[in-house]
């Protein structure tokens, strides 16, 4: 993506140090906003060392201090609010928790979701500015819910791909914002793709034909990438048709990038790269997994595989450096698109104060969304809304009556922002001043009967103390549904244990066994393990209580086994037996009398039931669709005692309702998904008639889990007696159909119109219908349009119907609205498996218009001429390299995809190539790129086919080695490969030099005399890059024992005679205010002598007191006040935990300053400095300065090494009061001055110099 912006010389966010007064020309390209993001990213990547590159390939991207790059965690979540908590230190409250995806999916209101996502992005920006989180969010989940048992159903917008695409498209737009250059936040659609069962997600393969793949599973991604500029996807754990998605060039590159046009980054799900090897056994080693992921196009590994193995993979030839570079260019491009590398004044989204988080606006929008999600399933005799003027008491019962269930991936909002139904209803009634008694008696529980336990082993102990250990996963037989897996751990476990499941083990020796110990993990509440012999109903010899209720610890879904033991009833068995472990859920609690009394004694009984994170979640699918715990019992019991029972369900999706939905005393049923922090505020407004529920189910509610095919079956169409899936193919009766939801009012549809009765795939048509509110309340209706193709051959098994349009409208009582819905006919495609492209059936297309997928109020139709000439859609070009060396060539690879999602034979198209900077890189008519000389170039590729032109571009960095082919002094060659600084102890002689590349200019400034420095400068006229070679001509240095006076070899810079003296065999300098770091440049009494060669210098320093604050004294290698290296004994600052007392010793600091920008290379807190005496030594070799210190004059300890090019070097001594750095060092900022400490008196006993 090309972007050019105006440059403003301002402070840089990343704290990179530059010389004061830097202009655009002096800025490295990656910091220069005159270049596009891709150009800047390519430049940055070209500057990284290999180890730095590897450390940046994981989600925890390392800081790179030498380039001013901060650390960055790619992983953040914002599914329905930023996943974070309050941070008082940063002034942040807990972020707003909006209704979860399953709830907002039932609102069918993309505009509202886009508004919500914009608010989430606002809060994300405010949090980002505190430095505690990034801006790349791994949300939304766009999986259509193929099977309601899927543990993450609560994170999805619904079962229909069109609905999921429209809703998640709104989320993406809200997050990314509308600025043409910058992204407000970076959403990431997941999990790409067909990750729709939890229990086997690390090891399983989702197998399907290309029709299901393209029409159903990939559809939302196609829509988001093509229509909403989705900037990221996450590759999933699972394989598809045997190939892990994270290792698939087909899925990630050919389809996501080259077919749909993804322009952004791909992250693996956490440990997905690891799963390529350890889950799917697709490769054998971690290096191969790294290679598979990078080559497929996964740019970032959430985990450590890339960060630990990329270099090894490179060394083994499994990848090239270009694979690594490409991934990093994608990652840095995204970071740059957030404005991270740009001055804040330029970034539209830079200034969000902490007060944005949990603002009143956020809370109001959370409530507004919560008002739009409820779905009214039943309402007999107008039980709802409740007329509060006619009731005296309301009972609130059920486990969710006084609970705020926020659902998966919720942040931690402020407690004050969370409103339970009980709190909300009580406050609502109190605010209205009504005399209605609210009787709360929660009762009921949500104990899960799914995934009771994960069992690893069991051990039998005999009466003589001997034991035998058995691997529980090696069962001989089991009940249906039992699985074995490791989840995200390494321990194999028996999983998917339901109430009544069993595993059997043959040939078990039970003679004299007295005790059994089972190694099991409790994911939620646990269960009972009955040990039977011979059959699941055979003799019961032991019962292991593996429940949290009995005091056992729950390890959660990621936990490992803990031992749980029980006595065994010895029954005199001889010989081996078949042992059965039968797993049972704990008995349901009885419904307490208090609950029933509260219900009985109230005019209306509201029963709050639902699911929670223990019902199903990541790593744990539901095995049952029943309401968990004893909630079904609760509903029935309450309905028996109160004829005005209203059931309010808050669940992650479909639950079985057949057992109670038609009970006469259950007069109404309301459903929401997890409805956010404001659920309790919204609910009373709905219950009491302020707002009429307008939500519609976003999924089919099946009558029974038994109606479903196995969860591992990813095919959709009915075959061989197996039912089809979703509203597309499911034909059996259901409890509630997709799109169902009634209202307090009624709506009448009439006057159905279609804008054209003959359509082609390129048309956009409009369907209009008049909808009248014929009831007694204002209300919302969601007009839904479903498409069928009755003329399609039966053999093609087209879907029964597909949702192709909808609109939610608000219609006041008695009024009529004309609802117009546009249908893009290009969206009415099917996938042709034989020709591997989109296709359109010719014939009649019927558009069913209605209030649900079954409640069709009218139809219109059109005849489709399905003939379709595909046009050019997506062009992707690259040369598979980000960095080239001058002289290198690379071929441009271009793919062109048509809008039927097939690839064009590129030879049929006309292609034109242009380079933005031919002097850097030129390109010929065949796409052969030749790197000419150092700089950045962008190649644009224009592909024209059938009159339509689509372009793509790629950027490259050409590195231009700035090398000499000859360097002579006085006619004699001194050139050494890799050396930029030379030292000659001799008089100055003429220096001559020749550049290795003819495009480089050589200019030489001769040294006039020794000491003096000749400078050979190589420069590139076009790029402005330059490199200096220094030849230092020096004279031998002179030792000084400071016996009587300062030797003649010295000069004293900024001499202050009051503070410098030779006395008692030492040079004594008393410090004064000032230093030479950064812009201070005012330290007095710098004692310097010429040292323009290689050398070793040392001294013995004694200070009368421990240096305080920023005081420092020691050795100096000095060019000028802006270029030097100093090794000093300095103030230590306060040690951790220290209060007012000064530290006992100072610290040793190695400080380097280049062009006015200084940094501390080592800061060593010293102890054991005896009598204030320390020995200091510095060794210069070429451009490298190594520092040492000693506390006894004998043993020298290395204190660090720095590299810098200094010329006309002087060596000497310094003692000054120093300056305290004010926070991070910034360009041009004057360091803060300290309060004046007592002067430091530094005695230098000698100065020795050995010149080389």
């Amino acid at each position, binding site marked *: 993506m090309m972007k050019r912006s105006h440059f403003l010389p301002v402070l840089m966010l990343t*704290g990179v140090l530059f010389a004061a007064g830097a202009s655009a020309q002096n800025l490295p390209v990656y910091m220069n906003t005159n270049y596009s993001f891709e150009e800047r990213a390519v430049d940055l990547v070209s500057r990284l*060392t290999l*180890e*730095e590159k*590897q*450390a940046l390939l*994981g*989600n*925890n*991207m*390392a*800081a*790179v*201090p030498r380039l001013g790059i*901060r*650390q960055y*965690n790619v992983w953040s979540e914002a599914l329905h609010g930023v*996943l974070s908590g309050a941070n008082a230190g940063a002034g942040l409250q807990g972020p707003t928790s909006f209704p979860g995806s399953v709830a907002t999916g039932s609102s069918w209101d993309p505009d509202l979701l886009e508004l919500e996502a914009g608010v989430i992005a606002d809060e994300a920006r405010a949090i980002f500015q505190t430095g505690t989180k990034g801006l790349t969010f791994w949300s939304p989940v766009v999986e259509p819910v193929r099977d309601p048992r899927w543990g993450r159903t609560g994170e999805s917008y619904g079962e229909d791909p069109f609905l999921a695409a429209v809703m998640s498209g709104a989320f993406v737009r809200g997050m990314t914002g509308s600025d043409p250059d910058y992204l407000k936040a970076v959403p990431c659609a997941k999990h790409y793709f067909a990750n729709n069962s939890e229990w086997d997600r690390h090891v399983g393969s989702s197998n399907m034909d290309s029709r299901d793949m393209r029409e159903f599973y990939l559809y939302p991604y196609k829509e988001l990438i093509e229509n909403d500029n989705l900037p990221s996807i996450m590759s999933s754990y699972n394989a598809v048709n045997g190939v892990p998605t994270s290792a698939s060039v087909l899925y990630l590159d050919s389809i996501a990038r080259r077919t749909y046009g993804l322009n952004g980054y791909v992250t693996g799900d*956490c*440990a997905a790269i*690891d799963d390529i090897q350890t889950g799917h056994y697709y490769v054998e080693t971690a290096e191969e997994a790294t290679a598979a992921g990078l080559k497929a196009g996964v740019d970032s590994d*959430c*985990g*450590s*595989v890339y*960060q*630990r193995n990329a*270099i090894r993979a490179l060394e083994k030839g499994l990848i090239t450096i270009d694979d690594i570079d490409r991934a990093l260019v994608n990652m840095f491009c995204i970071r740059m698109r957030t404005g991270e590398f740009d001055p804040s004044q330029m970034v539209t989204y830079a200034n969000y104060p902490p007060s944005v988080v949990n603002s009143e606006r956020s809370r109001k929008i959370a409530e507004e969304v919560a008002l739009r999600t409820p779905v009214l399933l039943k309402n007999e005799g107008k039980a709802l809304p409740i007329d509060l003027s006619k009731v005296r008491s309301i009972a609130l019962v059920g486990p969710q009556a006084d609970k705020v269930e926020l659902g*998966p991936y919720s942040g*931690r909002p402020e407690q004050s922002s969370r409103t339970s139904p009980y709190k909300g209803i009580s406050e609502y009634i109190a605010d209205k001043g009504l005399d209605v008694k609210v009787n709360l008696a929660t009762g009921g529980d949500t104990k899960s009967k799914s995934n009771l336990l994960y069992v690893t082993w069991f051990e039998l102990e005999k009466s003589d103390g001997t034991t035998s250990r058995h691997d529980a996963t090696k069962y001989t037989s089991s009940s249906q549904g039992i699985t074995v897996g490791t989840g*995200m*751990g*390494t*321990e194999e476990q028996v999983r998917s244990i339901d109430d009544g499941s069993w595993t059997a083990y043959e040939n078990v020796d039970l003679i004299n066994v007295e005790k059994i110990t089972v190694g099991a993990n409790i994911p939620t509440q646990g269960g009972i393990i009955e040990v039977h012999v011979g059959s699941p109903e055979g003799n019961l010899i032991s019962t292991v209580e593996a429940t949290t209720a009995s005091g056992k610890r*729950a390890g*959660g879904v*990621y*936990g490992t086994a803990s031992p749980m033991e029980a006595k065994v009833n010895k029954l005199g068995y001889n010989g081996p037996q078949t042992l059965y472990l039968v797993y049972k859920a704990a008995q349901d609690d009885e419904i307490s009398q208090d609950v029933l009394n509260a219900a009985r004694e109230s005019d209306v009984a509201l029963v709050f039931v639902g699911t929670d*994170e223990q019902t199903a*979640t990541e790593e744990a699918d539901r095995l049952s669709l029943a309401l968990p715990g004893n909630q079904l019992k609760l509903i029935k019991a309450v309905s028996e005692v109160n004829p005005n029972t209203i059931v309010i369900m808050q669940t992650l999706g479909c639950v079985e309702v057949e057992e109670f939905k038609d009970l006469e005393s259950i007069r109404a049923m309301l459903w929401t998904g997890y409805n956010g922090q404001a659920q309790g505020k919204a609910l009373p407004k709905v219950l009491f008639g302020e707002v009429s529920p307008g939500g519609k189910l976003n999924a089919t509610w099946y009558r029974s889990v038994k109606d479903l095919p196995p969860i591992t079956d990813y095919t959709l169409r009915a075959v061989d007696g197996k039912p089809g899936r979703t509203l597309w193919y499911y034909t059996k009766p259901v409890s509630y159909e997709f799109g169902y939801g009634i209202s307090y009012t009624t709506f009448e549809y009439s006057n159905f119109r279609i804008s054209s009765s003959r359509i082609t795939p390129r048309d956009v048509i409009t369907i209009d219908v008049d909808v009248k509110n014929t009831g007694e309340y204002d209300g919302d209706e969601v007009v839904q349009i479903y498409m069928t193709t009755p003329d399609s051959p039966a053999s093609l098994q087209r879907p029964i119907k597909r949702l192709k349009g909808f609109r939610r409208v608000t219609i006041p009582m008695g009024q009529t609205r004309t609802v117009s819905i546009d249908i893009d006919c290009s969206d009415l495609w099917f996938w042709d498996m034989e020709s591997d492209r989109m296709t359109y059936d010719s014939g009649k297309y019927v558009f069913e218009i209605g209030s649900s997928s079954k409640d069709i109020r009218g139809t219109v139709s059109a005849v489709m001429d399905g003939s379709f000439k595909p046009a050019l859609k997506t062009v992707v070009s690259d040369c598979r390299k980000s960095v080239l060396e001058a002289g290198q060539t690379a071929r441009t690879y271009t793919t062109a995809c048509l809008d039927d999602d097939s690839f064009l034979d590129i030879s049929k198209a006309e292609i034109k190539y242009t380079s933005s900077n031919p002097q850097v890189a030129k390109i010929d008519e065949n796409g052969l790129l030749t790197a000419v000389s150092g700089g950045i170039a962008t190649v644009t590729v224009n592909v024209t086919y059938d009159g339509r032109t689509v372009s793509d571009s790629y950027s490259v960095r050409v590195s231009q080695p700035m090398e000499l082919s000859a360097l002579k002094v006085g006619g004699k060659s001194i050139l050494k490969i890799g050396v930029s600084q030379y030292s000659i102890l001799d008089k100055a002689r003429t220096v001559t030099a020749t550049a290795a590349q003819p495009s480089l200019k050589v200019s030489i400034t001769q040294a006039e005399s020794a000491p003096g420095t000749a400078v050979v400068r190589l420069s590139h006229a076009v790029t402005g890059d330059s490199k200096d070679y220094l030849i230092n001509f020096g004279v031998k240095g002179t030792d000084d024992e400071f016996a009587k006076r300062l030797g003649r070899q010295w000069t004293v810079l900024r001499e202050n005679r009051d503070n410098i003296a030779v006395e008692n065999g030492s040079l004594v300098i008393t410090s004064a205010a000032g230093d030479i770091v950064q812009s201070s440049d005012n330290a007095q009494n710098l004692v310097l002598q010429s040292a323009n060669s290689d050398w070793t210098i040392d001294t013995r320093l004694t200070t009368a007191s421990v240096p305080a604050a920023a005081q420092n004294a020691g050795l100096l290698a000095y060019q000028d006040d802006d270029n030097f290296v100093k090794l000093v004994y300095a103030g230590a600052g306060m040690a*951790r935990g220290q209060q007012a007392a000064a530290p006992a010793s100072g610290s*040793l600091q190695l400080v380097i300053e280049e062009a006015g920008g200084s*940094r*501390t*290379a*080592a*800061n*060593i*807190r*010293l*102890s054991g400095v005896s009598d204030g005496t320390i020995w200091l030594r510095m060794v210069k070799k070429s451009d490298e300065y190594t520092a040492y*210190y000693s506390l006894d004059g004998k*043993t*020298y*300890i*290395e*204190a*660090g090494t720095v590299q810098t090019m200094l010329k006309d070097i002087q060596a000497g001594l310094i003692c000054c009061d120093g300056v305290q750095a004010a926070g*991070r*060092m910034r360009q041009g900022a004057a360091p803060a001055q300290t309060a004046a400490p007592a002067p430091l008196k530094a005695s230098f006993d000698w100065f020795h110099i050995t010149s080389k």
Partner: protein
Amino acid sequence: MFVLLSFAPFIQAHTVATKDGVQYCIGPDGLSYLHKGNMRRISREAGTCIAVFNDMIVTGHDGHIRSREKKRCRYVTAVAGKIVDLSASDSICIAATAQGLLYLSRDAKEWKMTDFNAQYSQYYGEIAVRCVCSSRAGLMLAGILDDGSPVAFESDRGGVWSPRELTYNEGGSILTLQERPVSLVYDYEHERYEMACTGGVTFLLPGCSHCNALIKTQ
């Protein structure tokens, strides 16, 4: 070849490494080989650490790193400060001082020092290093920030360090480790670092930070 079988603090501040019944004791004079199991008292304050690197025993004691092969102390490197921890895999040794000076070596003979805090304090904050670990999975160091909160970092070769999240999932909530690190080991069987922390807590760090776990000893 030396195999480190056990390394344990004894009562009265002894520190030993044993192999096949042979005991090495770290005393005030450095490492000594015990012929008769005669243990000498040493001071814990001296900052004593031991690791085994292929054929060599490496100790950090009294401001020096000593590397011993064939029972003689052959390589001595003075370090700036007290070593708080020392660890070795079969390819790289690492020693660290509390101030964040890291000493790395690929042969236990020549050591390269880098100042972690000088390099990273502006980005990661100033850390007091508590423990390090070298394994075939790379290097990890852990410590505490000025405010007492724990931090950990990973590196493959010791030149570039990435921060490591110390969050974990408990009951559906994402929490952050509060306890301070005490020592680090690498569990090859489970492919994870294990960090012993204050308060009887062990923090597990597998390759993916999503699966961090906290275990409290009962």
